């Protein structure tokens, strides 16, 4: 069964709301698409990465705005947009991590989120400016055979 529509969440930028974001997006994807459990898990992880970055920037900047998570379903696509009101960043300038066989690698506890989002989705688009960042995570439904 597939459904069309939009599910929107506006959550406080606090880590304890991450689980709610994952649950809602996971439920929308599982009930409104033919995606299989592994694909839904991938989407939940990608969304969690985007929402984590959004909450982190709101926390660092002391922003009280809510983080907006908008899940759009159509016949062809599931798209989840995560929008924050942070000062933006250059997604092409995210530094790469040292090689995993280098002792230096252990000095880095962050820096994996953007790479994971790209790996977990068919397309990830990051639009960032001075008024905020919107991350759009897309999974094509036409060629997904996971649930059939």
């Amino acid at each position, binding site marked *: 069964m597939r459904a069309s529509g939009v599910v929107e969440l506006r959550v406080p930028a606090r880590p304890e709301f991450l689980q709610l974001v994952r649950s809602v997006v996971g439920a929308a994807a599982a009930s409104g698409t033919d995606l299989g459990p592994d694909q839904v898990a991938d989407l*939940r992880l990608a969304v969690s990465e985007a929402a984590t970055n959004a909450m982190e920037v709101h926390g660092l900047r002391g922003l009280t705005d809510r983080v907006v998570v908008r899940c759009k379903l159509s016949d062809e696509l599931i798209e989840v947009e995560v929008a924050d009101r942070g000062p933006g960043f250059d997604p092409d300038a995210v530094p790469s991590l040292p090689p995993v066989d280098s002792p230096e690698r252990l000095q880095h506890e962050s820096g994996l989120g953007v790479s*994971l989002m790209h790996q977990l989705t068919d397309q990830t688009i990051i639009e960032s400016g001075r008024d905020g960042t919107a991350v759009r995570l897309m999974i094509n439904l036409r060629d997904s055979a996971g649930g059939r």
Partner: protein
Amino acid sequence: MLLEFHRSARDPWVVLAIFGELDMAGAPRLRQAVVGEVAGGNNRLVLDLSAVDFIDSVGLGTVVGALRRVRAHDGDLILVCSEPRILRVFEMCDLDRVFEIHADVDSAVEATGRV
């Protein structure tokens, strides 16, 4: 649910079995637990992720930080994990090449043979 731990000793290893979701909400508790163990002189740790339902890059980063911390004290850290979805996240980040990962605690402790 909040991240919870079950602690046991398998001399010379301390096993921390982790229950819950290892994300930005849960990771600080793991960091705190590892800091506490190392401060108490326990720098050979087994982190049992068998009951971890979810891990993301923040959780991975915390596990990387735990490895760095124990190694800084001449210790070591082994992971236990057999859940494909959790393992896959390590693999996607190439961290399966950084950590020694075993399927269960017994094989982890026995395979090391290190004292």
